[in-house]
């Protein structure tokens, strides 16, 4: 076994540099990836475990990332895959079909029946919702809907990107998003009416 040739040495050095750059870029995105992870699962602990599994896998398979493409989406694709595996392993009770109402439902409920005689400012109506209510309602959304709502409405991904991350057709993203938001609004309306304040 001889010494590596200068070309080989250069390749190794280039490789190491590319890997370090990849790892640094991935870590810079950790906060943003975490925001999505945190809402895909029920607890902080689960989100942290999922992040660690995701980053461990990402660092192992960094070569399959194509530089110049959306790294945040690439990381979230790993994360959602791992999460689906975990969700299957948990095999929770079959989910009942969630109820949904139209898109005006939440406003109508919060503003009350007389709302249009003396219309209120939207901000005042919105003030009847609480931060905890939103967190709770989101966590109650069935998986398939929550994944899409979280990626698009919280992660800020376009439909096509969410479709790639979840490996489902764009049309499915659109229909799940549409229904998911309506289910979410219905749950928010319920949470607001449960709240005595």
């Amino acid at each position: 076994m001889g010494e590596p040739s200068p070309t080989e040495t250069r390749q190794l050095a280039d490789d190491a540099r590319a890997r370090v750059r990849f790892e640094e870029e991935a870590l810079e995105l950790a906060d943003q990836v975490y925001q999505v992870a945190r809402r895909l699962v029920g607890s902080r602990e689960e989100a942290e475990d999922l992040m660690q599994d995701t980053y461990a896998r990402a660092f192992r398979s960094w070569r399959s990332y194509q530089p110049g493409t959306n790294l945040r989406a690439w990381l979230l694709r790993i994360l959602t895959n791992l999460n689906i595996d975990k969700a299957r392993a948990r095999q929770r009770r079959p989910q009942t079909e969630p109820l949904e109402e139209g898109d005006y439902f939440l406003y109508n409920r919060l503003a009350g029946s007389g709302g249009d005689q003396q219309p209120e400012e939207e901000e005042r109506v919105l003030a009847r919702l609480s931060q905890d209510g939103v967190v709770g309602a989101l966590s109650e959304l069935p998986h398939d809907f929550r994944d899409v709502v979280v990626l698009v409405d919280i992660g800020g991904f376009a439909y096509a990107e969410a479709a790639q991350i979840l490996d489902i057709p764009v049309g499915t993203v659109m229909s799940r998003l549409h229904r998911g938001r309506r289910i979410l609004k219905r749950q928010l309306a319920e949470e607001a009416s449960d709240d005595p304040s």
Partner: protein
Amino acid sequence: MTLRDDPCDNCEEMLQPYLDRELTTIERAEAEAHLDTCEYCRRRYRFEVELRRFVRNAVVEPMAPELKQRLSSLRTPL
């Protein structure tokens, strides 16, 4: 059913794709023509914009600094 019901139901259906900018030019013009004349729908559209912002902000939860350290420790040693 009042006269108003139909166009408002239609406008309600267009709310999400309108805000997501997924309507065709014709559909968009249709929605806007109705919104120009209908305070009822306009109010609910404005509410939806505020709601989306509220939801986005409500769920922000900073990552624990220890987690960031744990992630860094997963890096390949040089």
